[in-house]
């Protein structure tokens, strides 16, 4: 599970329910974002878009992942 939020204020909105770029996980109540254009930033007066990309920087957080023993690994 990867949780996406505004890097500055920690929140985000989804542009329209059922947006194809936003997948809702009912189990965790969190959204998975596959396209940042699905985000609408409507909060945090002190949040500024990135000067080069024009996007509001996001914070992608791995919330849960299961790792298993590897076999034969090495380099």
């Amino acid at each position: 599970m990867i949780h996406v939020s505004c890097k500055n204020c920690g929140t985000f909105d989804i542009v329209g329910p059922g947006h194809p770029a936003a997948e809702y996980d009912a189990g965790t109540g969190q959204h998975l974002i596959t396209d940042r254009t699905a985000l609408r930033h409507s909060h945090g007066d002190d949040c500024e878009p990135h000067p080069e990309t024009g996007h509001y920087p996001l914070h992608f957080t791995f919330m849960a992942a299961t790792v298993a023993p590897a076999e034969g690994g090495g380099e």
Partner: protein
Amino acid sequence: MTTFGMTDSSRVNAIMQALFSATATGGSLAPATGGGAGFAISPPYHLRLMTVAGSNTVNGTEATAVNCPGYTAGGSTLGTQFCAAPSSAVQSNVNAVSWNATGTWTSVAGIEVWDTAATPLRWLQGALNSPLSGVVNGDSVVVAAGALTLNAQSW
């Protein structure tokens, strides 16, 4: 004849703690005759991001500074101690790991945990249920403390 279905949980905990909670290189396992090859325990462990997930037999394709700007091949440290002591054969990472993207990233499909021996060894791997995508310049990518779970209850 008795068939054993499970390894004693206390022994599994001991093995896991020796491997993934150690904070210094050492504690090498040197089996006696017939015990197979010995191996060293070489923390700190590094978390690597994979653009193509591996399997339990094949390494994934690691991200690079080119396709994931801000990431450095070889991964980032999981801290002096990777995992706290296990409980019921389950343990998780103590420290968060983060990267600051300086350009557009290729999707990340898997993660792996490697040690820092002279020739690093891969210890753990996992595919992400949902690939990490859409990361661009200015974003941050964080693996939260406690986000990585190692479950050996089926040993």
